[in-house]
């Protein structure tokens, strides 16, 4: 176990640097998790505006307009008091003030829409205000058309009211089994783990392996009676302790991200398996890079390209639903995609059925297969390099 001891020694000598790498990337991961609350909203709820209405017409049509607005907003009727209404608008207690002048219904029936003196006041640049303007205009256009077609004022008002009551269908980009409730907060932390694991593994493995890649040291070790595959396996054994410590540290992160309920979750075991599989893939990638990269600059460049590249392509930073189908298809060939699939399955389920378990097992198997393939590829390359000093 001489090579193993050598790696442990180098790890021990560089422990300060290694801890700082772990700390930096862990901090980044925690910060990302804590500062992107938007991704927690998984249900749609329309926003209600506070409308102050001054109805001087008091007709069936004006009442229908107010009813139409009241369906999705809080409408309060008020007498004309410019000073009070301005104060309410200024203080933010009212979002929108609507004036319906006397004769509003009659003017609509005469088709004299241009002469209508309906007015609205809203906060300048307010999106909700523009929306309410358009609701009012649509209502007037519809009622005007119905009256022109021979409907009575009451009938037109009723039809317009019914029409406005129809809700636009809102389809969420992703539907969860937990559709009506928020998914657990800690699940977002696990979504970002690929960035943490890949960055840390590539950095620390490369940093420790770099001295061993020095040409003369490589020659000296190659000239010794230790087979190259055994050397590599001893290196892996030495790193295994480091991996397990790092893994344990990352499992404390839910405490730092308001996710302490993770520890009591029935899914915790599956999450642990997923993170272990991801750790294997990340370590295998780090092992491949660490064996062939000679400078810290190259390590930094490769760590960024690989960790950020995989994370963007596999839906860590940007949900896959927002990406093109071609990218999603390509992502199927990347291990991080399968980790994300596993975590999404866990995050969106309260109870795992047969289909979910099969998907999780598939995700774990594919990740482990990737890790094994990368390690085998590295060992093969090392064996080839053994005679090309």
């Amino acid at each position, binding site marked *: 176990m*001489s090579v193993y001891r050598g790696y442990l020694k180098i790890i021990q000598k*560089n422990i300060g640097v290694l801890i700082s790498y772990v700390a930096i990337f862990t901090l980044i991961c925690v910060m990302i998790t804590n500062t992107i609350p938007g991704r927690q909203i998984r249900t749609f709820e329309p926003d209600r505006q506070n409308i102050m209405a001054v109805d001087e017409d008091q007709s069936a049509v004006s009442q229908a307009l107010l009813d139409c607005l009241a369906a999705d907003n809080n409408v309060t009727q008020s007498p004309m008091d410019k000073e009070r209404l301005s104060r309410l608008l200024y203080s933010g207690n009212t979002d929108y003030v609507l004036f319906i002048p006397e004769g509003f219904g009659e003017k609509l029936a005469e088709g004299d829409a241009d002469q209508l003196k309906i007015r609205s006041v809203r906060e300048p640049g307010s999106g909700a205000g523009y929306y309410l303007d358009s609701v009012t205009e649509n209502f007037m256009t519809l009622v005007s058309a119905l009256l022109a077609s021979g409907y009575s004022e009451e009938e037109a008002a009723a039809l317009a009211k019914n029409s406005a009551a129809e809700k636009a269908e809102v389809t969420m980009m992703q539907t969860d089994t937990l559709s009506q409730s928020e998914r657990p907060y800690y699940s977002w932390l696990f979504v970002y783990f690929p960035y943490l694991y890949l960055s840390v593994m590539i950095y620390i493995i490369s940093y420790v392996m770099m001295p061993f890649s020095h040409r003369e040291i490589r020659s*000296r070790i190659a*000239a*010794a009676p230790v087979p190259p595959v055994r050397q590599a396996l001893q290196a892996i054994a030495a790193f295994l302790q480091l991996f397990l410590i790092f893994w344990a540290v990352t499992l404390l992160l839910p405490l730092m991200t308001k996710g302490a309920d993770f520890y009591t979750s029935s899914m915790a075991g599956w999450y642990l398996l997923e993170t272990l599989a991801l750790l294997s893939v990340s370590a295998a990638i780090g092992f491949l890079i660490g064996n062939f990269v000679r400078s810290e600059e190259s390590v930094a460049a490769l760590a960024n390209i690989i960790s950020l590249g995989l994370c963007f392509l596999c839906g860590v930073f940007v949900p896959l639903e927002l990406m093109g189908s071609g990218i999603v298809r390509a992502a199927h060939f990347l291990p991080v995609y399968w980790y994300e699939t596993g975590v999404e399955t866990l995050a969106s389920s309260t109870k795992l059925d047969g289909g979910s378990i099969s998907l999780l097992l598939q995700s774990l198997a594919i990740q482990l297969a990737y890790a094994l393939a990368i390690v085998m590829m590295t060992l093969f390359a090392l064996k080839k390099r053994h005679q090309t000093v």
Partner: protein
Amino acid sequence: MDSVISIHNLVKRYGGVLALDHLDLTVQEGEIFGLLGPNGSGKTTVINCVLSLLKYDRGEIEVFGSPMKPSSYESKRNIGVVFQNVAVFEQMNVYENIDYFCSLYVTDRKMRQDCVEEALEFTGLSDCRKKKPKQLSGGLLRRLNIACGIAHRPKLIFMDEPTVAVDPQSRNHILEGIRQLNKNGSTIVYTSHYMEEVEQICTRLAILDHGRCIASGTADELKSMIRTGETVTVEGIALDETALQEIRAMENVFSVTYAEETLTIKYGSSGNLILLLHYLEDRKIAFGRVFSEKPTLNDVFLEITGKDLRD
């Protein structure tokens, strides 16, 4: 004596460049065998091929009587290597470096401890055991490089230019150490382009040029192979063509060169200096420094290849 290394018809190409050209060499047990040649002559390539660190195109290599392959771990266990460039871990101190490289060969902790202490003592690094490599001078770093290669008490040691860029004191220490290792029973293959060193410590040597072994034997055997018996050099001398003709016509002279007031005469035998001095005195020719040299390995190389070993 048994042969420790036997190389037959070794051919190694780097792309279109022929690095080793049908090389034949034999190193006997107990020898300090020198591989002498200019830079690029193939010395390091021979070592790398023998250690199976390089694949070769053709030929056979036997070490300790067995064919040498990458998986010849039993043979490798008895081989030590001191590479041309220092190969140690910057992160470890002197003791840890020697201990690590020794542990690749010696697994028993107690035995390894003895080996490391012995290597520290042998290379004079006992007082520096706690120092990191970057705290060592160039000479001490070279000694650490040697200690890492020999700590496991190998029977065969390759030393690839171990004295490059080393101060005279460290160089003497290293050369003395090599002799001591040899006395302790190790066979040593020593490569250098410093012919004085090779001549000083090697019991037998081979001269390489363009991957070919152009001569091999003891230093005296090699020198006896060439025509030069003595080289006399006279500095600060002004000669006309008549005098040069007369010198060329002297007994045993086979080569005369005269440039920048320096006269160099090569004789086929030794003991010619007195005759030359008499001639200069008779002709009342003034001169500065005069010295006579016995043939060197450089003369051997020069006569065989037509170029200077130092080029």
